[in-house]
């Protein structure tokens, strides 16, 4: 190129910006995306092909078994003829898996209890709705009482339903929710104690937290289920479910304490100092300034602990409570439905997975939200 050519081509000179040329065909659209993300070099290509192959081996037969050739509706195992999964088993026992041995006529009480809970939680989760403080106070203090009378009954004209009839998914949820809600206040106290400057208070809290975090939940449940009556006077009689709950709450409060401690540490020191400068005493400083801020930051941590606890409740089957997993196992040994263990376990896995996955997505969303909200700490 020379200057002359430029000048002679002056007819083509324009003072307007030319539109961008489209990118080369092989870097846009599906093909371009695949080139960039799947086949960028030889190693990547090999890995992609290998991955596709493995997926093919795993996914195709599973989909075939679980969906395409499965039987869904029927009354007995005779309905399962097509060779795939026999969801008829789940279909027939679905009510039992949800409610355990809870009397059929009273099951609306469980429905109502959880319906109320869902409304309150939705209220708390949806950002636009007002008066969140009032609702959370209601959830923490009033709702448990309502739930207790609804589920257990024995007054207000409701029949008494003993806890050994409770079971299935509803029991799993009750255990997890009670565990987390009751553990929260203990967790806050323990965390405050662990950060306290009083040596005895601090060491007591440290010992307590580290003790419960160091032992497996199974041994805790075992102790609660069979040894707790040895520790209390002979006249005192606990319900088996209540004992499991006590064990879970003691255990869980240690984990909760660590979550709370993490939240407290995230509050800048200036906040404490400012509160003290205003002349607030310790409890006012904590209750009015520090905890309200810290609790908000702790929600993702609390949700994560809740997920862990929710999964761990399946251990109660070892002490003979019929949670979701245990009740499905009991159903599996019914002589009429022998041989459908894969369907049973797959169903339990799916139920747990749906709950845990959605909760973990929510907690990740919150984490992101808080992260941007606070900027640099």
């Amino acid at each position: 190129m020379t200057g002359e050519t430029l000048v002679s081509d002056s007819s083509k000179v324009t003072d307007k910006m030319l539109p961008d040329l489209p990118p080369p065909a092989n870097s846009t659209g599906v093909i371009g995306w695949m080139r960039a993300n799947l086949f960028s070099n030889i190693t990547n290509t090999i890995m992609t092909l290998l991955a596709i192959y493995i997926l093919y081996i795993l996914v195709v037969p599973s989909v075939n078994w679980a969906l395409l050739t499965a039987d869904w509706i029927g009354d007995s195992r005779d309905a399962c003829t097509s060779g795939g999964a026999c969801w008829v088993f789940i279909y027939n026992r679905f009510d039992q898996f949800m409610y355990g041995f809870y009397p059929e006529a009273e099951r609306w009480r469980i429905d109502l209890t959880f319906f109320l809970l869902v409304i309150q939680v939705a209220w708390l989760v949806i950002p636009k709705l007002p008066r969140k403080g009032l609702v959370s106070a209601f959830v923490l203090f009033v709702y448990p009482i309502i739930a207790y009378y609804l589920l257990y009954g024995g007054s207000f004209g409701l029949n008494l339903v003993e806890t050994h009839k409770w079971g299935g998914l509803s029991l799993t949820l009750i255990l997890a929710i009670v565990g987390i809600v009751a553990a929260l206040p203990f967790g806050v106290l323990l965390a405050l104690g662990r950060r306290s400057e009083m040596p005895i208070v601090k060491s007591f809290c440290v010992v307590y937290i580290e003790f419960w975090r160091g032992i497996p939940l199974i041994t805790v449940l075992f102790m609660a289920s069979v040894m707790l009556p040895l520790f209390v006077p002979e006249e005192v009689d606990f319900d088996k479910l209540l004992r499991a709950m006590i064990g879970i709450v003691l255990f869980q409060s240690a984990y909760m304490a660590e979550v709370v401690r993490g939240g407290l540490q995230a509050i800048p020191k200036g906040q404490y100092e400012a509160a003290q400068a205003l002349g607030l005493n310790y409890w006012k400083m904590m209750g009015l300034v520090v905890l309200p801020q810290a609790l908000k930051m702790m929600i993702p941590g609390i949700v994560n602990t809740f997920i862990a606890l929710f999964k761990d409740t399946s251990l109660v089957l070892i002490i003979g409570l019929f949670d979701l997993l245990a009740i499905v196992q009991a159903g599996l040994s019914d002589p009429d439905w022998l041989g459908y263990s894969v369907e049973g376990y797959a169903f339990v896995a799916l139920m747990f997975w749906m709950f845990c996955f959605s909760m973990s997505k929510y907690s990740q969303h919150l984490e992101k939200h808080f992260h941007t909200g606070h900027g640099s700490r």
Partner: protein
Amino acid sequence: MQSDAKKSQSASTHKTRFWHDPAKRALLFQGLLILGVFSVVGLIVQNTLQNLESRGITTGFDFLSQRAGFGIVQSLVEYTESSSYGQTFLVGLMNTILVSAMGIIAATIIGFIMGVARLSNNWLISKIASAYVEIFRNIPLLLQIFFWYFAVLRGLPSPRQSFEPLDNMYLNVRGLFMPEPIYGVGFGWVVLTFMAAVAGVFVLARWSKKRQDKTGQSFPVFWTSIALVIGLPLIVYWLMGSPLTWENPELRGFNFKGGMTIIPELAALWVALSIYTAAFIAEIVRSGIEAISKGQTEAAEALGLSSTKVLRLVVIPQSVRIIIPPLTSQYLNLIKNSSLATAIGYPDLVSVFAGTTLNQTGQAIEVIFMTMLVYLTLSLLVSSFMNWFNNRMALVER
């Protein structure tokens, strides 16, 4: 905060009532706490003693020396039916440690691979890795253990139709049977050579690092070390006239006899623990790597380091420090979770000692106390090791 307040208080000349003095109040409060804790503990002890007595239950640790009289399917220490209950404790403890150690190693490896794979620029690979994480960490471990156990059992043939993946190695529903090495005279020298080679590798690594610092030339330490560690013992082995024979498993009657066995309970528990924990470790590794600012990677690339070297020399050493503390708590979880062995009959501490032994002897309090003590000790040991390791990593910082 309290001490600040205390100073300001003592500075003031006003005589304050004692409950307005934080220092005294703290004393009072702590005194009350001690009193409260001890009265609760005392009450429990009193109730327990009273209940034990009124129910005629004997207490004490004498049962540990009594004959146990039941068989255990897998034991790392000498154990027969005539061994004592104390030995069942030891067998259970060793089995717990075995499966925990195996699980920690496998979970770390799988977790690191999956964590790095989640960040892969290959879309499919990173999606598969994240699907792995989301599936396995959201399903209860107990369920996964059942799944692996019964899936493993269902997929395997009976002893008479065993798979033979390698010569003298048999896989069937009773486990994986492998030849067991029998060490002859002179094998000690091979072991010695091996240890010497390992020591040599350390020296070599130091030397090459010094040389690289001085001259900038790098030395192929990795390949030389492999040659040293494998080659030297092989030469000695050959020189000593191959002092190693193998005892092969043989099908006799119902089962294979002889050789080494991995029982299906161990395999299932191991797989379940590793895969479950690895899903959490993958997330830890991913966030650890993502926490390293992009500038670090770009700077390293600008220096002309290859992508493996960028990972090995720049990213990983920095992210390890972020990774170790949460990794430690995953290790602790794995050890505690190994107690789920009791659900499928792997003879771990909870299953053998807190299960069968407790039931045969009825000494619930003593047995549960010992079991809890073991888990506390294991947790303490692992976390102090990891703290030590963490401190060491931190010191490397320049």
